[in-house]
């Protein structure tokens, strides 16, 4: 029965994912890609569970997984943020430029 629930969840999430992103301006393509990439670092949760596990091999694999996942998460969010900030700056520059 658990598998059934998971299947429901999977199905609904996929649909939701499809619906969420509809019309994105080209300027946002890269930040959005990068942001989505950071979310895919959610595998970190799995890595944590593995790393904290009693089983030794699992711990080792998990620890490696934690490293990589953290790189993905931390780097991903920061890079996205930098991209979006640049974006904002340009807008600001434009509007002040317009006034000058």
């Amino acid at each position, binding site marked *: 029965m658990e598998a059934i629930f*998971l299947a429901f969840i*999977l199905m609904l*999430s*996929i649909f*939701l*994912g*499809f619906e*969420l*992103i*509809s*019309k*994105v*301006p080209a*300027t946002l*393509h*890269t*930040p*959005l*890609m990068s*942001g*989505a*990439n950071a*979310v*895919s*670092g*959610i*595998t*970190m*949760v*799995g*890595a*944590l569970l*593995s*790393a*904290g*596990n*009693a089983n030794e*091999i699992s*711990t080792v694999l*998990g*620890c*490696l*997984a934690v*490293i*990589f996942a*953290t*790189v*993905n998460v*931390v*780097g*991903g*969010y*920061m*890079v996205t943020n*930098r991209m*979006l900030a640049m*974006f904002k700056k*340009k807008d600001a520059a*434009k509007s002040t*430029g317009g006034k000058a």
Partner: protein
Amino acid sequence: MSLELINVGYIVAAVLFIFGLKMLGSPATAVRGNWLSAWAMLIAVVVTLLDKSIVSYEWIIVGVLIGTVIGAVAAQKVQMTAMPEMVALFNGSGGLSSLLVGWAALHDGGDSLFILITVALSILIGGMTFSGSLIAYGKLAEVMTSRAIVFSAQRLVNALILVGIVVSAVLFCMDPATDSIWLYVLVGLSLLFGVMAVIPIGGADMPVVISLLNSYSGLAACAAGFAINNNILIVAGSLVGAAGIILTNIMCKAMNRSLANVLFSGFGAVKTATKVEGEVKPITAEDAFLILESAASVTFVPGYGMAVAQAQHVVRELGELLEANGAEVTYAIHPVAGRMPGHMNVLLAEANVPYDQLVEMDDINPRMNNIDVAVVIGANDVVNPAARNDENSPIYGMPIINVDHARTVFVLKRSMASGFSGVDNPLFFGENTRMLFGDAKQSIANLVAEFKS
């Protein structure tokens, strides 16, 4: 903390992820969207750490510290221009993590067929995401050639690898030892497959590929989620998987190509990739709109084609919209544009273009390299750089409007046909030229519609 409570945390995280992704898709909310999504991640991680099945934290702390340092330093140091390759690396890293999580699940999870299959899937998808991302990085960073790498029998090799993957996965599931040889074969082949899938794709198409690989890494996380029976991995992973595919599709459309074309064109079309010079680059109204929207100075260069299309009214409308958008708009009139002296004046006056926006050739040319976009509307001879450069051209010596010096040039015409004087126009093949084919009135009307939607 009970599993129930942890899952409540997961639900909160999932909601935030959903909002975050949605908000990332619109300029006004993108920054907040990213923050929401980051908070969601934090919540997911924190509640996970409260899980009773976690018995030791040392390794975790070590791992997190190392990962944080690497990720933060890399994200800080990277040049703005090198962002895409950095994203590729991060993505590969995530894929590798999923591979490892799947693998680890073998050791502490059960070994029901369901779990084995999901483990195999996380290894496959995570592995190919990892190696594919590395190749994408290499191409973008020009560590390796950015050209499409093709060789004969490529299809055959790829097919063999795929068969190998399926076979090893099946064999592994049938005899699921944690040190099964088939496991290692599966890992190896997955990595190889990622490499093979990306090398035949040209460097210019890498952003699309990264987006696709990103979708895969979401799916890998999802698969890992099934392997360790974790809801948030499934939800967030499949969200990213689906959103990534849609995004990939949007990016393909913006390039006026199909996904299949991006993924497989390398196999067939070695030639087009090399012939970079002398290429005509068509553009869609949508993309032209996006460029115009962010332009601070736009000059229209009308010609006889504008008269034929009777596009003057929509042109003025576009001009007004651009002005409202903050751009400086001028109309550069070449003295011989059209078929009678003052032809353009008649039309633009009819459309009520203010006189002070009309500029003469001699006024606009010196400042052309500060113009963001020059929109050539059915003009041809009067913007033909051959008049400047090609001594053999029959129009050599005629002063022209140097639109080729503008940052970007859009040329609106119906075909590649030549103008009144019948000479070819190298402008159309320029590096910064984009051809917006179609009747000028229709093309401009499309741009106007884009502005309004």
